[in-house]
Every structure is written in structure tokens, then in C-alpha cells.
């Protein structure tokens, strides 16, 4: 078999071996000793093949920068029967709110989070650290040298995101918005866009 024909199968076998750890496109190119474009094509081919074949129970997905083989959603209910303790306890509303703020505004300090929520957020922050969803991403410039928080790769994986750019846009209030809030929103979005340019590839 020609090498190019072997590539999809090789990638599938690699992804099968590493399981939930997945492989990034960089790792795949170095492992296969191929160009990124070739690897990309092979991945597309595999992805198509999984979708086409209805007898297939697995598929290829990109979460948090890494490609992984996962089971199709069609079989989620069936698989839950196979598991001892399938559904992890869902997160509290407080943790989700704090996580949303950190995801969209990172890097962000605890004080900023407290301010936004109008309530102390230390508990949820500690929970999110313990769950491996957020981490320290340096210190702020200010006098306090406050800890800056950001999300982890595990966050992207758990929330099914390929990258931070995959976060759905924050909702916009349309009707009756006052000029001040508009201005405020624009400023915020500018700041966020800048922030994102610099820190897009958080690992």
C-alpha cells in the first residue's frame, strides 16, 4: 500500500491507542512524518467515513486542540447502561457562573469576578481549580499582584470546545440599550478582542 493510502489508518490507530488523551495536529504530523495539510486531509477523510457508515459507533472530534476518537452521541444512552456511575454530578450554578466569567474574560482576577457577580467567589474558584478547569495564569501588574485566572485544556475538553474561539458569543441586549451601555460594551469587546489576540493559544 502506498504511504498516502496508509495515512488515515495510521492516524486512526494512533488515536485509538492514546484514547482520551488525544493527539494534537502537531503531534500527528511529527508521528506520521507528514505535512500538516496531508494529516488534515486524512482526518477529514476519517471524519467523513465515520459519519457515512451507520454501522459505526465511534467518530473523530477535536476538543481542546487535540483530536480524539469518541463514541457517537446516538449511543450515549446505551453506553450509560454499561457504566457503573455514568453521570458526573453537575456543577453548581455558582461554579458555572464563575467559569463563564473566567472563560470569557481571562486572564481575570478574583476581585473582578467578585465585582461582576456582586458576591464572593472564592469557594467556586477553589472548586474549579480542584476540578482542573481553571488555573493560575500569572499575576496582575497592579500593586496587589493579584492572581490571574484562566481556563485549562481540560475545560475545553469537558465543554466540547476545540479552542477558546469556539466559545459562543456573549449575548447582546438589543432593544432600548442606552448609549452608555453601548459604549461600555464596545470598550469591553475591544478589550476582550485584544486580550484574545495575545493570549489565544493558552495551553
Amino acid at each position, binding site marked *: 500500500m502506498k504511504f498516502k493510502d496508509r495515512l488515515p489508518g495510521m492516524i486512526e490507530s494512533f488515536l485509538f491507542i492514546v484514547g482520551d488523551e488525544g493527539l494534537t495536529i502537531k503531534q500527528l504530523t511529527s508521528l506520521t512524518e507528514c505535512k500538516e495539510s496531508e494529516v488534515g486531509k486524512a482526518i477529514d477523510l476519517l471524519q467523513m467515513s465515520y459519519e457515512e457508515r451507520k454501522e459505526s459507533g465511534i467518530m473523530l*472530534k477535536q476538543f481542546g486542540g487535540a483530536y480524539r476518537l469518541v463514541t457517537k452521541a446516538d449511543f450515549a444512552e446505551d453506553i450509560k447502561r454499561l457504566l457503573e456511575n455514568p453521570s458526573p454530578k453537575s456543577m453548581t450554578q*455558582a461554579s458555572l457562573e464563575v467559569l463563564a*466569567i473566567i472563560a470569557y474574560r481571562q486572564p481575570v482576577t478574583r476581585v473582578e469576578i467578585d465585582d461582576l457577580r*456582586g458576591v464572593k467567589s472564592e469557594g467556586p474558584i477553589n472548586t474549579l481549580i480542584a476540578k482542573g478547569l481553571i488555573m493560575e495564569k500569572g499575576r496582575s501588574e497592579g500593586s496587589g499582584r493579584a492572581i490571574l485566572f484562566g481556563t485549562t485544556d481540560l475545560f475545553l475538553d469537558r465543554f466540547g470546545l476545540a479552542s477558546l474561539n469556539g466559545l459562543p458569543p456573549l449575548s447582546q441586549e438589543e432593544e432600548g440599550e*442606552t448609549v*452608555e451601555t453601548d459604549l461600555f460594551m464596545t470598550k469591553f469587546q475591544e478589550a476582550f478582542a485584544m486580550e484574545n489576540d495575545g493570549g489565544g493559544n493558552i495551553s
Partner: protein
Amino acid sequence: MTYQVKLEAFEGPLDLLLHLINRLEIDIYDIPMAELTAQYIEHLQAMRVLQLDELSEYLVLAATLIEIKSKMLLPVHEGEDFDDDFDFDMDDDPRDELVARLIEYKKYKEAAISLKESADERSGHFTKPPEDLTEFGEIVASESDESLNVFDLIGAFQKMLNRKRLKAPMTASISRTEVSISEKMDEIMAILEKGGGKCDFYSLFEKGETTDLVVTFLSLLELMKRRDIIVSQAGNFDDLTVAYRREDE
């Protein structure tokens, strides 16, 4: 079953305000301050079960609401009243800052909901543990040049915990029942005996695999149901104590 539950669980004063605005069908850009303030304070009184530090955050916002309300009540022409308050400019609506805060908070509250949806969607896709590669040869341990920190450690641990959850097939769970509940019940009674009729609840859970812990727990439940033991707590946040139930109780 009786619980002492908060009236409704709010995530903070802003959350409560949003809830009230929703319920009263108020236009967020034209808030009737008197009505909202009254409702807010009424709610606070109903939520007395709150812990003190949490309460203080609610009270700060109550003060803000009252301040805005009073500013709006002041007649525009009596300028002399504002001598000591030069922050107050009549071109500004005193509600603006509050509205901006509420809208900002609401955005993240909604983002949290959509995050939860993505997490639910993701949880429908299962994956597998990495294969054991030993059949392919010795693992060459390459020195990683990335510097690691404790967060990598936590991430790895969580990933693994999660994987274990997803793994355990039915077959494994059946073969793993090693200690029966009745054996465990005897064991607990023996521990109580040794401890003069009582022991610390958590000390029963200090060691053992998860299955052991669950068996221990189920045994305690059974003993409680049989009224052989009683689990008590002196006050909120105190440790729990397990003790023989005396006949007169």
C-alpha cells in the same frame, strides 16, 4: 423528609435582583426603584437563613438601591441639596450604573447556561483509556522540556478520575463486592464497642477503596434503620458522632 432550605437559591444580590425584575415584569432600562427596592428588602427578610458574610453582600446592594431611590425622589430644581454630593450630575440617570452591572452580570449568567449545555452535549461522547503499550516495547521516557506546575498535576488527576468513572463495565462491579454489608455492620458495632459506645463518623471512612466506603455507608444506614445506632451532630458544622442507640431513646 424535612430540610431547612433557603427560600430560593440565589447566586448573590444581582441574581436576586434579576429574578425580581423578571418576576415583576419590569423593564430593566426603566426600573421603578421604589417597587424594586421594596420587593428586594422583603425578600431579604424572608431569606434570614443566610450566613452573615453572604448577608452583608445583599445588604450592600440594598443600600445602593435605597440610595438610587432617594436620588430619584429629589426634585430637580432644588440644586442646593446636592452641595455635598458633587458626583451627582442631573444629566445622568442614577440607575445607569446599576443597569449596566445587571446587564453585564446577566450576560455571564446566560453564558453559564450555554456552557452547561455544551458540557451536557460533550458528556454524550465517551472515550477510552489509553492502550497499554507494553506489548509494543519499552516506553522511552523522554525528558519533557515543558515546565510543569501543580495545575498540570490536578488536571491529570481529574482526567484520570473521570476516566475511571467512564470505564468500569458492569462485569467489574459484580466481581468487586468483597465485604458484605452484614460483615461491615458487625465491624462497625465492634468499633463502637471498643470506643465505649461511640466514635467519630468520619473515622469510619478514613481508609478504603470507594466500594468499601459505600459499603460502610450502606451499613451505617442499615444500622440506623434498625435503630441500633444513632448519628448525631452537636451543631452545624460540628463533626458527626456515631453512637449506640440506648433503649430509652
